[in-house]
């Protein structure tokens, strides 16, 4: 099966075809190498009558639905999970915590596992939208392995509702071949957008970071809900809007193909971009900004609860989690995982900014999620 995954070039395909015709390779080899085999095998597999379901150690059903963020997992781990348990993972991607909350509030999201950010968990608990976790079903979870500041938010009123996934910062990524000087602050981010980078910048479709970083431009708190400070931020955003390339939380495609040169960016994605395209650099603003921690949680009325626990437990297995971290680049708060990661990753300046930069960052505050003025400001900015 491994062979099938590797891309095959047109030339290679033709070579293999010729070899097969000549009889120097077996049909099986030919099918395997070209991927035709997988295609045929699964076409057979798609007919349930032809291939009886395999028996698995524990029957958790055939499906599990995960609501998460863009570029946040190693797809190979889902394939491995499916092979091991028989449950295929459907990944739904969201660009903001608001979107996840709205979907759960409207009822019947159909999710089994989702990935809320630290500051939102109390709201989910208050609204009775998530359920306390049964730790007996998560043997891979070890509370002692986590740094408290990245794990605290999972516990509300003495009950554990969520287990930590990754932590990170929200900074900016830019194409250094286009920039006159490296970016160091949110002030530069917005100022350069309105001049040299006009039409080349992206901000998140997410009120917390887009408004928060506009607030940092003026040196206000990232979490401010003060009317006057928000008015300043709104004015800045409205002025910047004509100079933006897009308002989106899925900014990698445009950065990769060169349409955009600068974007608000979550650490791991900055790492992914930098790894593939070294000209793209990442920094957090020196005025401050966001530090965050994401969690796995299970919504009330999750349709496949057993599979939900199995999936979380699988993903927080240190071996699997290390593979995840290598793929997506986001730092992990689990010391067991860090022990498995290469030291250069743990010393990476993108993932682990210098202490003085880190100290200026703020965790999001619960009030920003529910504050009507911030929500309305973001909506006004988008429709301006």
């Amino acid at each position: 099966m491994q062979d099938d995954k590797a891309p095959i070039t047109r030339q290679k395909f033709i070579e293999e075809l010729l070899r097969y015709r000549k009889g120097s390779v077996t049909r099986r080899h030919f099918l395997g190498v070209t991927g035709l085999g997988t295609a045929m095998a699964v076409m057979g597999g798609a007919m349930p009558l032809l291939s009886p379901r395999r028996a698995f150690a524990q029957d958790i059903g055939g499906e599990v639905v995960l609501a998460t963020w863009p570029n946040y997992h190693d797809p190979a781990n889902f394939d491995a999970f499916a092979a091991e348990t028989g449950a295929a993972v459907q990944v739904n991607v969201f660009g903001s915590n608001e979107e996840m909350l709205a979907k759960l509030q409207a009822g019947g999201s159909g999710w089994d596992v989702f990935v809320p950010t630290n500051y939102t968990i109390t709201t989910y608990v208050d609204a009775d939208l998530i359920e306390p976790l049964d730790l007996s079903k998560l043997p891979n979870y070890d509370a002692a392995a986590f740094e408290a500041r990245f794990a605290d938010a999972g516990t509300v009123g003495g009950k554990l509702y969520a287990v930590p996934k990754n932590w990170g910062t929200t900074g900016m990524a830019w194409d250094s071949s286009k920039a006159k000087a490296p970016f160091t602050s949110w002030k530069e981010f917005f100022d350069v957008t309105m001049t040299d980078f006009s039409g080349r910048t992206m901000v998140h479709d997410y009120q917390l970071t887009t408004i928060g970083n506009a607030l940092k431009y003026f040196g206000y708190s990232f979490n401010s809900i003060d009317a006057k400070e928000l008015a300043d931020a709104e004015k800045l955003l409205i002025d910047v809007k004509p100079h933006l390339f897009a308002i989106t939380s899925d900014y990698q495609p445009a950065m990769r193909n060169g349409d955009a040169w600068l974007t608000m960016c979550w650490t791991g994605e900055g790492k992914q971009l930098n790894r593939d395209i070294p000209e793209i650099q990442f920094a957090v603003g020196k005025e401050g900004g966001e530090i965050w921690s994401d969690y796995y949680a299970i919504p009330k009325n999750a349709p496949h609860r057993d599979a939900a626990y199995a999936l979380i437990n699988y993903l927080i297995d240190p071996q699997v989690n290390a593979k995840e971290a290598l793929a997506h680049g986001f730092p992990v708060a689990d010391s067991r995982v860090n022990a498995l990661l290469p030291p250069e990753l743990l010393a990476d300046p993108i993932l682990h900014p210098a202490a003085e930069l880190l100290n200026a960052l703020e965790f999001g505050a619960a009030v920003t999620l529910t504050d009507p003025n911030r929500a309305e400001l973001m909506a006004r900015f988008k429709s301006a």
Partner: protein
Amino acid sequence: MAISRHKARLLLLGPAGLWYAALLVLPLAVVLVYSFGERAAAGGYAPAFTLAQYANLGSRWAAFKNTLVLAPAGTLAALLIAYPLAYFLAVRVNPKWRTALLVLVIVPFWTSILIRSYAWIYLLGGRGIPTLLADLGLGDWRLINTPFAVLVGIVYGYLPLMVFPVYVSLEKLDKRLLEAAADLGAPPWRSFLQVTLPLSLPGVATGSMLVFILLMGEYLIPQMLGGGKVFFVGNALVDLFLQSRNWAFGSAMSVTLVATMLVVVTLYMRFLKRIGAARDDIGVM
């Protein structure tokens, strides 16, 4: 006999009536009631009686403006591109090929609009047409995430809906009329203006109405090709329900959108009646 016929009628109308009551009247009534309410603390709806939501509509003026400019512009662009094609298919083409060519117009329609718009993201993005233009020395173009990109998506998405009604009305055109006009020495443009165009107006009216109605509620195309920068009322609505969770304001905006449409469509129908293009049915089919 009369009574039983009346009863039979009611029975036949029953299911449809039930549907309209439960899924049209009730939801619209709820929307109307909610539009006078407030946003609940954590989002959603809280009962109240206030005109605050309507007073706040001004803050979404840009979305209304975009919709009211780009929906008619898109309709017009689709019409201008569709008309010659419909004319070609109805009048000029060898009848042997007609069916096949007509089918070819609808086939793209069977691929999800999502996938087709996605293809345009690639074509209009930095590595698509702009690269081609730059290589040809035609300058630096930025197409994706502009109103132009949205317009292209609109024309692409709705072209078949415009071609068909126009084609149907042109097909009924008696070609002998054109021949007669030519025999009488009328230049082609005159016979087009005086014979062909008036006869095709019902098709033009139907197609335009169909496309315009769909565009007024458009969400997907601006979402995918506008990069969050070209905002329609539909995008603002989705935002209110799926991000900022302000059901009351979203309801007020829905009411306003429907009211705007009713006004525009009624005016348009009246205009059509005046130029004699309206048909008896409501112009949908």
